């Protein structure tokens, strides 16, 4: 017997047998309760990303945009918490990135995160000093979502100064929003439908389709309010009066599940409440 232990192959065999026996025993043990999977996805901050991509912030911005557009929206459901942080990081790495501000406007601003989408557009306006689209989008959003007429006009003027073809149109819009002569929800709807038609990826189309449906709901509500006020001759006090009068059968359904609100005698798109990510 002691002779056997001197053979190295026998020693190896005994060691491996012991190893397998212990693995088998361990696999029979009850597992510790699994820790719950973290809820949020990781977005690495811009300085660290720069180092990770070999000091190349442009490559980092490109690949992060590809990542967020490929994985941030899944089966028509946008991970808004992740997208807000991812778009912000890309806009720090390369504020001029065109896909970033365009997707940021489509997914964040129209997905309820107006402030966060606006910041991306502001940075793009600053960096892309020749491009009329970011200031136009920002100005329009300021008017449509926040009713900040002055800021909207300021950005529409920037857009007009950058464009030869659309300058007159932008300036006209800036005057019309002050006079409140404009059917803003229908204009927004047209604009969003155009973006929908131009979108190439199916995922993005599904997302934009939801935002178009959401806006169609708002158009329906405001039209109903107009009819109510014409019929009764007084201002609408409570949205339920529309149901009582039989102008609409039911309130429209918002596919993004954010819903609408009735504030200061006017229907509005409800903004997403995002805790913990607002800039302090």
């Amino acid at each position, binding site marked *: 017997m002691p002779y056997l232990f001197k053979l190295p192959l026998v020693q190896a065999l005994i060691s491996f047998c012991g190893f397998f026996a212990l693995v088998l025993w361990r696999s029979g043990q009850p597992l510790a309760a699994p820790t719950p999977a973290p809820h949020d996805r990781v977005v690495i*901050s*811009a*300085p*660290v990303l*720069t*180092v990770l991509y*070999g*000091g*190349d*912030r*442009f*490559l980092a911005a*490109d690949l992060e*945009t*590809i990542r967020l*557009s*490929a994985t941030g929206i899944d089966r028509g459901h946008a991970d808004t918490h992740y997208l807000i942080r991812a778009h912000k990081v890309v806009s*720090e*790495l390369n504020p*001029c990135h*065109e*896909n970033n501000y*365009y*997707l940021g406007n489509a997914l964040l601003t129209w997905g309820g995160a107006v402030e966060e989408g606006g910041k991306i557009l502001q940075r793009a306006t600053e960096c*892309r*000093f*020749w*491009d009329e*689209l970011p200031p136009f989008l920002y100005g329009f959003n300021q008017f449509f979502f926040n009713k900040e007429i002055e800021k909207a006009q300021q950005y529409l003027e920037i857009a007009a100064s950058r464009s030869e073809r659309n300058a007159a149109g932008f300036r006209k819009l800036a005057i019309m929003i002050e006079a409140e002569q404009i059917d803003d929800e229908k204009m927004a709807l047209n604009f969003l439908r155009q973006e929908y038609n131009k979108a*190439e990826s199916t995922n993005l189309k599904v997302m934009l389709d939801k935002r178009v449906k959401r806006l169609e709901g708002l158009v329906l509500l405001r039209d109903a309010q107009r009819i109510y006020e014409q019929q009764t001759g007084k201002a609408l006090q409570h949205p339920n009066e529309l149901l009582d009068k039989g102008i609409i059968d039911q309130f429209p359904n918002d596919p993004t599940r954010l819903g609408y609100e009735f504030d200061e005698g006017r229907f509005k798109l409800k903004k997403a409440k995002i805790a913990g990510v607002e800039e302090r």
Partner: protein
Amino acid sequence: MMNIANVFRHSLQLLLRQKLLLLATFAIAAVIIATALAAEFGGRQPTAVALDVGLSTLRLVLPLFMFFQVQEIFSREFERKYYQLSLTYPISRHAWLLGRFLALLCASSILLLLIGALLGLQVSLLGQGHEPATPVSLGLPYWITLLFTGLDLLVLLSLACFWAVIASTPSFVLIGTLGFMLIARSYSAVLALLANNTNVVGSVEAYRANLGLLGYLLPDLGALDVRMIALYARMEFLPANWAALLGSSLLYALGFLALTVWLFRRKQFT
């Protein structure tokens, strides 16, 4: 002078006999494939994203190509003791080193121009058939971008030769120069980004002050990346102090080259 030319010619022949063409083919293929893939994910601006990723790949594969050539022509020679023969020729060590350096510079420049031309051709082909709002510029701004990239490569090449002469193992050329490249290319961008990312490190100001000291030790290779002038076709993106930037990087490369010559003259072979 004749001696340098002779060494230059022989070194080029030596490189061609080794894996130069194979590695060059890999480098070209990497850039072209990465560019084509990036264009697929380009969204609203396929040409800009394709050019962007193509330039990034070029800036990654060309240094690797150079480091392998430096290993081939310096480290292998020391390792296999070929210098016992090559240094017996009636040439100075000065000429021995500079001839090899110029051969490496020549091979890398030709590859840079070749990849640059192919990338430009590929992006212009990708851009056919649709008119983006802001097209990329493949004219003068593009070639200026390549010139700045070439200077970045020159700094890395002179540093790789420096490591090859003083290091005792060939892999140190790769590791040392890659580490240098990473720090020199990223520190200025990290410094700028830390200004609005205050939660990444504990005390941002102290960190930035220390990182700022790196500016006196390393050239700012990150600022040599001027691709925005080509990506967005706006020359305004060229840094205002570009002449000082070019001059400082060139002086840094020349300084290291001179230091390498000095060290090589005093090198004691065992």
